């Protein structure tokens, strides 16, 4: 099934902290060279991680739902530096 997650995320309220992503890939080379599964690219519920053709993984945190999954599944390589956004920034649920 082809599902457009952007359409879903479009409904959410979000306050972007420009230039200060709260999650970072520590060492991009690890994603390309050492990680076989690249599970973040399909487990992330906001599709923040994208597998590029050349085995690199890119991360754009706009739209992040702050669930923590990407950090927890990356135990083997521990390659995700994960913090909550600064106070007041990030996802703002109206219903939750």
């Amino acid at each position, binding site marked *: 099934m082809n*599902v457009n997650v952007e359409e879903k995320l479009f409904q959410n309220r979000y306050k972007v902290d420009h230039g200060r992503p709260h999650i970072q890939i520590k060492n991009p080379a690890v994603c390309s060279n050492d990680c076989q599964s690249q599970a973040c690219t399909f487990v992330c519920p906001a599709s923040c991680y994208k597998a590029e053709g050349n085995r690199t993984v890119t991360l754009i945190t706009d739209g992040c739902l702050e669930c923590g999954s990407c950090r927890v599944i990356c*135990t083997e390589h521990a390659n995700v530096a994960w913090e909550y956004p600064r*106070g*007041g920034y990030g996802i703002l649920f*109206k219903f*939750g």
Partner: protein
Amino acid sequence: MAKEHFDAIVVGAGPSGNAATYTLAKAGLKVLQIERGEYPGSKNVQGAILYANALEKIIPDFRDDAPLERHIIEQRMWMLDDTSFVGTHYRSDDYNKPPYNRYTIIRAQFDKWFSSKVREAGALLICETTVEELLMDGQRCIGVRCDRMGGEVYADVVVLADGVNSTLARKAGFHGEIEARNVALAVKEILFMPEEVIQARFNIGEDSGVVIEMMGSVTEGMVGTGFLYTNKDSLTIGVGCMLSDFKANPKRTTPYALLEKLKAHPSIAPLIEGGEMKEYAAHLIPEGGFHAVPQIYGEGWMIVGDSGGFVNAAHREGSNLAMTTGRLAAETVIAAKAAGQPLTAKTLAAYKAALDQSFVMKDLKKYRDLPEVLHTSPQFFTTYPALLNRAAQTLFTVDGVDKKTKEREILGSFKSARRLGGLMSDAFKIWRAVR
């Protein structure tokens, strides 16, 4: 806020943090509560069923003004295969008499309301502020550092009510990273539609509601469940599976594709048809149970709610355990202060003792082996739902075949799918795990 000293600092304004802060403030203690969201609830996600009992013990007259959606009069459990479901419905008019036992709620609104009670009780709440780390003096927690200028604040005790990710406890070394096999990742949507449509579709009155829990082929063999709850003028639909299973799923299915698949199921689609999607959310649920509960108190610190893994996955209870752990932690601090005792690990051990005496630890202990049984028995989410649906279809299809032959066929299909020994051992495993 520099140099300010409090009796207690509570991190987080979810149900556990609000319960703790309310109880502490009500007893006259000087409490600071810190929440990273724009308002309490803006970061929080739940199904959401509110169990009245845990809140009643904190705010007995909460029904007077809490934002409650519908009280639940009917519980459905559905086993799905790709085109059908076999299910049970339990409805009782006894659930239709006040005081009601459970309600659907909308967490962002409920948390805001609970927080207003916390402030009325006299606590100081600061929002839009993320606590970055705990301030330690050797083994002892003496305060917190926030992401604001001069954001160091001190207290006799810090209560961590910071939810499932518990970044603070990990940074302080109180426990390690959560394991993917101990958390479920849930995604959900809220779908708006007119009240009358909901009432007609679910056969309910103006204030009453229905809960549907689902398992089966929709999770693609992953350990997990779907849910559909009726709110006043909206439905909540979601699905959650163990994070380790998402990671290992050979189909590499995304959580949102799984949710779409659930919404498109022929048994679900007519119930949600026409609903206007207004929000998409995701959250982890700590489902490791008894064996995954970390150390929850120490020198000047305590852990409550999801941060301590207090969720009963078998019964989908979490917010009530959160409120109860928050209250018991607060009562421990109040008693220690009243007795003039310092808030050391030795004194705070009373919190764990109180928890052990409560339904929280008793229930977690009862189901302590269930996560392991489910992990090692995917047939509960694949083979059995499929078999049951096939059996029902065989029985209910009138096609000239006699019933005895049909029964033999059904038994045969169960045996060939799981062999009798397997069936018996599954039954035994489940019985032992929930005994």
